[in-house]
């Protein structure tokens, strides 16, 4: 392994990591601003112009608050919970292709940390691990409400992983590859975006993404009206901060995954017709990818402040009785269309 390779990957990982944290940080501000907008309020506007320093103030507050660990709790697991939550949230972005190649002289940089040939499954695995942070934290708190939140989180994640996996299977039948890089390359232009081939699959994936990130209308694990604070009832200070922050990072990563899988990733319409040099296409592609990601993050927040929370039995019914049959029907339909297309 040569030194240049190591440095390149190190820089790339650092940039992705910092960007993830930055986006997650400002998502907290954006959430409150959008909530304000939708409820006809102003939102935070005291810290800096337009409240732009608000996330820093919140972060500093989180760090300086008193930290309480309940005496009857399991100390090690109590700390491991939020650590796991933030760790699993952060490692998902490793396989996402952020752009095409950048060329500096004769040195080519691939704007993807790693292209493993099971990319989608890796993300799926990381998502399925995300629930451990919530479960371990909720159990270790030794509080009935926390435990209820943890159990809800577990059953919700398990239930919604199934339709998510099934919708991905339908997508894979179209793309024929598991590598996110190849999937991005296939969607060059505008008509090749997977959303045109898999609209139903995308809808199922989107709903499951809401459930997997514990966002409203699926935020039953932390349902304030029933469970005080759900799995993070006993948490304070930066540990609580980590849980809340992990949610925003999850939102960013799942937005990136949706943009990559269904909305062409870094591709944008007429990208090869404008007569731009390759580096410029890459740079505009990265900007376009982020535009798509920001749109999805906005969508997450829009839904949160529009739709009320589900009841728990409604949540389970939607998952098992609506989404799974729909996802299976989607697979069958995709299979029939592919077969007919091959015959013609």
């Amino acid at each position, binding site marked *: 392994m040569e030194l240049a390779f190591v440095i390149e990957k190190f820089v790339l990982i650092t940039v992705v990591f910092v960007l993830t944290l930055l986006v997650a940080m400002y998502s907290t501000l954006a959430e409150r601003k959008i909530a304000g907008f939708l409820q006809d309020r102003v939102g935070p506007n005291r810290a800096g112009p337009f409240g732009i320093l608000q996330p820093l103030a919140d972060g500093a507050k989180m760090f300086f608050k008193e930290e309480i660990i309940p005496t009857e709790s399991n100390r090690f*697991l109590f700390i491991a919970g939020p650590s796991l939550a933030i760790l699993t949230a952060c490692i998902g972005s490793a396989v996402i292709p952020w752009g095409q190649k950048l060329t500096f002289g004769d040195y080519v940089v691939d704007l993807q940390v790693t292209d*493993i*040939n*099971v990319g989608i*499954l*890796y993300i*799926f*695995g990381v*998502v*399925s*691990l995300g*629930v*451990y942070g919530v*479960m*371990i934290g909720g*159990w270790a708190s*030794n509080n009935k409400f926390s*435990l209820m939140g*943890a*159990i809800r989180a*577990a*059953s919700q*994640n*398990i239930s919604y*992983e199934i339709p998510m996996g099934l919708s991905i299977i339908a997508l894979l039948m179209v793309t024929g590859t*598991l590598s996110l890089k190849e999937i991005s390359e296939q969607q060059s232009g505008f008509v090749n975006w997977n959303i045109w081939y898999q609209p139903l699959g995308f809808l199922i994936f989107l709903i499951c993404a809401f459930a997997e990130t514990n966002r409203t209308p699926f935020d039953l694990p932390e349902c304030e009206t029933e469970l005080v604070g759900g799995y993070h009832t006993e948490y304070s200070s930066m540990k609580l901060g980590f849980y809340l922050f992990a949610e925003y990072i999850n939102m960013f990563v799942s937005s990136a995954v949706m943009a990559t899988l269904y909305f062409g990733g870094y591709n944008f319409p007429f990208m090869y017709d404008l007569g731009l040099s390759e580096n410029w296409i890459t740079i505009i592609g990265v900007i376009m990818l982020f535009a798509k990601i920001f749109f999805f993050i906005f969508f997450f927040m829009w839904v949160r402040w529009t739709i009320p929370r589900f009841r728990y039995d409604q949540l389970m019914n939607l998952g098992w009785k609506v989404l799974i049959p729909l996802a299976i029907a989607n697979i069958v339909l995709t299979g029939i269309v592919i077969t007919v297309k091959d015959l013609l």
Partner: protein
Amino acid sequence: MSLFYFVALLSIFFALMVIFAKNPVHSVLYLIITFFTFTIHYILLNAQFLAVVNFIVYMGAILVLFLHVLMYMNLNNEGSEMKSMLMKVSGLIAGMCLLVTLVGSMKTLAVSDPVNLQDADLGLVKNLGKVLFSEFLLPFEVSSILLLSAMVGAVLLAKKEPKSI
């Protein structure tokens, strides 16, 4: 080479911790780490698909359910009741029988070198899929029927409950 032995050591250590942990929830957590070390083994063997499926199915789904069920049962109280002597002795004998069987069957197998791969690309998705759907089609289908029947059985068991909430 040394990496393999290090990970193998970790696997055995955490597998032992599964047995020796007093708290059942801790046992499951150690089991999760054990499965994670298995995932590392698969990656070392360049079996990426198997690794990630092990990751998703065992760590992400089955053990979440284990943990879920354990959290329902209030097994928090320390010092669970001691099992009777008969149980201990029968457990010991059964375990030893299993050990003897395993060691005996392992000895008849040709010992493969765990570090050097014969066909490095065998574990990649494309090759695995092709092999599964041509050479091993029958066992593959039979095992899927087995899974289906298990699923039907589970649904039947769950249906026996009276239909009130």
